[in-house]
């Protein structure tokens, strides 16, 4: 990134490098949005082998709660942790009520249940919050930030910073610490993990809490970017996030992060340069298919 920046500095008149840099930044912003959503899915997949589509419903809920709380209290700083915590707890409840009883079933069972749940959640939001979507009374974090000659909104910068920090920390946690190893042991064989003193159920609760809270944070930031929360806002992220965790090599946090950024960047350039032939979703999935044909186990196979 520094390298690009120098290029821009040296040839300020080269409009293209400036544009590319800006597209790159936009891709990264978009990618970090994907990342923060996908990582929760990745956590759940890693632990339970479940494609947890309803995760996107929690993302939406995060957006709603963040917005309502901010409008009510006037403080985003206050609203974010509260919304994240509430959504985290709801995530835990979803695990307990929905997934826990069907863990020994083949994975498609949970997948369909999850899809059903997601549809129902969207409808509940629509019935409660209305179909039109909600906006912030006075949207926070909209002030401008200058970043190497590019105007960005604080919310965009915040998104990137928050997701990079959270995900790096999480990745470190899972790879290097005893807790992380224990977490991954539960993935492989919960019964045996219990046999060595790891409380599999607690690990899962924690897992759902963290994943769902992250989704909520993601939802809040997205709502800040578009100043709009709608019942259906989880749709796109949900299947993009599925694609991302697969690209990243299912259950691999680092892979998820990199795949998310990659996808964000490819989409950013793609919409501009090949948007005429393929729409954004198609670009994303074309990338997915190509990569999977070359590396059937995703970018970062194995652990």
């Amino acid at each position: 990134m520094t390298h690009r920046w120098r290029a821009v500095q040296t040839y300020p008149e080269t409009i293209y490098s400036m544009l590319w840099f800006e597209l790159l930044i936009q891709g990264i912003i978009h990618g970090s949005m994907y990342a923060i959503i996908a990582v929760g899915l990745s956590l759940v997949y890693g632990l339970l082998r479940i494609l947890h589509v309803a995760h996107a419903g929690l993302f939406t809920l995060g957006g709603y709660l963040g917005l309502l709380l901010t409008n009510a209290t006037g403080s985003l700083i206050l609203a974010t942790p509260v919304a994240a915590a509430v959504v985290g707890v709801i995530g835990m409840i979803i695990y307990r009520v929905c997934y826990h009883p069907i863990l020994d079933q083949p994975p498609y069972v949970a997948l369909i249940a999850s899809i059903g749940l997601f549809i129902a959640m969207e409808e509940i939001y629509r019935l409660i919050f209305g179909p039109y979507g909600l906006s912030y009374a006075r949207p926070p974090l909209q002030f401008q930030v200058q970043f190497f000659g590019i105007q960005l909104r604080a919310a965009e910068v915040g998104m990137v910073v928050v997701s990079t920090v959270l995900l790096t920390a999480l990745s470190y946690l899972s790879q290097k610490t005893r807790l992380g190893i224990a977490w991954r042991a539960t993935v492989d064989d919960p019964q045996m993990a219990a046999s060595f003193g790891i409380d599999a159920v607690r690990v899962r609760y924690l897992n759902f809490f963290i994943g769902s809270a992250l989704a909520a944070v993601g939802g809040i930031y997205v709502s800040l970017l578009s100043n709009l929360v709608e019942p259906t806002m989880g749709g796109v992220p949900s299947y993009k996030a599925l694609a991302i965790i697969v690209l990243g090599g299912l259950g691999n946090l680092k892979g998820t992060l990199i795949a998310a950024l990659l996808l964000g960047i490819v989409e950013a350039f793609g919409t501009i340069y090949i948007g005429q032939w393929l729409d954004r979703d198609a670009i994303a999935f074309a990338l997915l298919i190509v990569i999977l044909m070359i590396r059937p186990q995703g970018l970062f196979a194995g652990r």
Partner: protein
Amino acid sequence: MLHLEGLGCGYRDMQAVHDLDLNVEAGSITALLGANGAGKSSTLMCIAGHVEIKTGRIIYQKSDISDSTPMSRVRSGIAVVPEGRRLFPRLSVKENLVVGGYVRPKQRSDGGMAKVMDLFPRLKDRLGQTAGALSGGEQQMLAIGRALMSEPELLLVDELSLGLMPKMVDICYDAITALNRAGMTIILVEQNTHRALEAASQVCVLESGHAVWKGSAGEAAGNQEMINAFLGIR
């Protein structure tokens, strides 16, 4: 140290073990013998907390642990080398060992690991490899090593010698007896009757879930014919 009182256990709609009484003294080695499907593994996994108790109770160090979770059992010093190894296939060898020592303080982990490496030097070169890619015998070594990491007082071993080369069988039995001498209580399920009888102090023979013979290893060795008869029946 461990008392099974009228223990009956099994799975959803079938009972694998019936009315089993067994006394395990601290510092002893007990061999559980029996033909295929006799219920040896079920008994072991029931002690470890993974098979549902239908009747009777399990007393461990004077307290009734019949209802406690596998987790609290491992904290109180019970470790298991399960049938089929049940390693964490996508964790590395080293990480498998870390999980083994999860209930012990972190500082003790390194020391434990060094001991396991001494016992199974073969694992030393494979520390970073995923457990699922180990050869059959290496997996068995890792399964034993993992159980030892939790510094158990009671070690439950299912099919100690399964898949091990003769030389390694010797090493394992030597290790078991050494650990036993250092105070560890061991329950051994073994198809290799001969080796089991050599190592054990007490023998229990199961047949279709019932204990059909119990006695000291000495008696059993003297009674080899009879034991064989039990084991031969299918």
